[in-house]
């Protein structure tokens, strides 16, 4: 039982990270029906931005300037730096690779996304090297024991920060003016445009919001696993996309649910001695769910317009 609880906790924290990234896929898909294949790379860049920010702070700390800065503040600063960097990256990606193709055939932006993905991976590799980079321990290595299971401080932070960000996003989409415009665009872009919504700006905002969340996910992932490399965005990106589809792509609560489920399923599968099969389990569940509920768990099947 303790073991199951432990795996459940590990799975939930991993799932939180998946959910953060899945939100970016699902929001962009909801609004322009595009699979943003470069999103995994945004996550990777976020992890590295956090790493560099921590490095800068450590260097200035050694010089004595910020030596007194407590760890948790440095963690917060690194997190914010990563989120900001990813926001800018998301904005740039949308401008360069997607906006010019808004009226192009549907698969064209898919290819620019793949090109951008190659570009970002190799840019990071050339700038920082292809080796595994150890992540600076910004968070103390303490752990709490709850009911026989061990939960580390970083896991607590993952749960707190991810839940906070998701709550913030839900509030933003549900209760603010730009959020309402976003929902309007997702429902019918042309009608929203006719109602005076600046559609281009809303789409850019969607990219930025998704990228900011992915940036936070990158730092949290780096702290949890201790190392990052330029290729990490690939598999985590696929997993997060899977999570988004599992929950029903285009559906924000669905992405959260899908992320959590995927994390738990993986952790439980790995826990029972099948760690090399955990990806097969994850994709197998996805295929099974789609066959029973083709629009995902929370997705609604839209009637075909004739």
């Amino acid at each position: 039982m303790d073991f199951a609880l432990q795996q459940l906790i590990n799975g939930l924290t991993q799932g939180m990270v998946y959910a953060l990234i899945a939100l970016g896929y699902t929001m962009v898909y909801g609004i322009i029906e595009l699979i943003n294949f470069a999103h995994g790379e945004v996550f990777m860049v976020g992890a590295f931005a956090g790493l560099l920010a921590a490095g800068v702070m450590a260097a200035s700390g050694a010089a004595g300037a910020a030596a007194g800065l407590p760890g948790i503040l440095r963690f917060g600063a690194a997190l914010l730096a990563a989120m900001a960097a990813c926001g800018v990256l998301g904005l740039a990606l949308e401008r360069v690779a997607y906006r010019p193709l808004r009226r192009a055939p549907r698969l064209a932006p898919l290819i620019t996304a793949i090109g951008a993905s190659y570009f970002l991976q190799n840019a990071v590799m050339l700038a920082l090297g292809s080796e595994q980079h150890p992540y600076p321990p910004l968070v103390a290595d303490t752990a709490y024991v709850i009911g026989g299971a061990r939960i580390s401080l970083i896991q607590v932070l993952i749960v707190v920060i991810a839940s906070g960000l998701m709550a913030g996003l839900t509030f933003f989409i549900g209760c603010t003016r730009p959020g309402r415009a976003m929902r309007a665009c997702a429902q019918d872009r042309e009608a929203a445009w006719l109602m005076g919504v600046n559609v281009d700006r809303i789409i850019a905002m969607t990219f930025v919001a998704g990228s900011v969340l992915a940036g936070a996910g990158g730092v949290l992932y780096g702290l949890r696993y201790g190392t990052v490399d330029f290729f990490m965005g690939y598999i985590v990106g696929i997993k997060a996309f899977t999570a988004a589809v599992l929950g029903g792509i285009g559906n924000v609560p669905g992405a959260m649910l899908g992320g959590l489920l995927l994390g738990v399923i993986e952790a439980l599968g790995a826990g029972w001695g099948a760690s090399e099969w955990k990806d097969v389990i994850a994709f197998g569940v996805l295929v099974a769910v789609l066959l029973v509920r083709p629009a995902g768990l929370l997705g609604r099947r839209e009637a075909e317009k004739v």
Partner: protein
Amino acid sequence: MNLPRRGTLAAAAVLLLAAIPWLVPNEAILDVLTVAGLYVTLALSLNIIVGYAGLLNLGHAAFYAVGAYTYALLASPQHGIHLSPWLLFPLSGLTAGVAGFCLGLPVLRLGGDYLAIVTLGFGEILRITLNNLGKLTNGPNGVANVDHPSLFGRDFSVDVAPYFWLVWTLAVIVIIAMRRLEDSRIGRAWKAIREDELAAAAQGIPVTLLKLQAFALGAGIAGVCGACYAAKQGHVAPESFTFMESVTMLAMVVLGGLGTVAGPVLGAVTLSVLPYLLLGFETWRMLVFGAALVAMMLWRPQGLLGRRGGLAA
């Protein structure tokens, strides 16, 4: 252009192609061109599924893998089985085609992007399974010492030229078949489904059956390519059939022009030769490749040889 002149041109092109191994004495360049030929066929096979039938397939490398492993397992010391390579080329196509059919059966009722993610999932499941089945497939190390084919008493061995001819013969056959298929009853039905599934069904087109045919045919051709790859390399491993491989094939089709014959051919040759032209850039190669991919798509969103409008794939 009238027909005889077109025929003459085509014959001249084929002759020129056949003479390349003598004209290009450099083995490395010939190898690049051989790989390009393999990708031409792969891109055309994916084009059947994505370009004609309009089904987004993100796991095409899986069918390629099925073909390669069929060949490798039945013609190597791995299990001590050594069937004739010339039997295995069609057999690999058959197994991959059956795999495509079996995958298509449950998933084809899923629309657009859901189909894409299921094919992606299938590709990953297959690759990881090949990686984990230690006894059957020798795990991540893959199957080594795969038999090379021989013809008229000449062993293909590790030369490049025979494989060049083998691969490009297949490519030319598939190109001709595609030209014939494009405007046939089946080809027109595929395009009708792609443009408007409901209208096609209303016209009496058996939509599911035709989608299954597209899937099985595309998968089968990819399977034959896989067998050629196994025969040429003499070694297959799961790492050759990643998601990136599927994505590369898709990029070739979209870059060249979906739903055309010349498009995927040009796209495949461009994307398989370009990385070698960029060798001078050393480590910057893949960075430039990514940027070039973006630039080419921005320049011609409908693909290099694609027609404007229409294709909603």
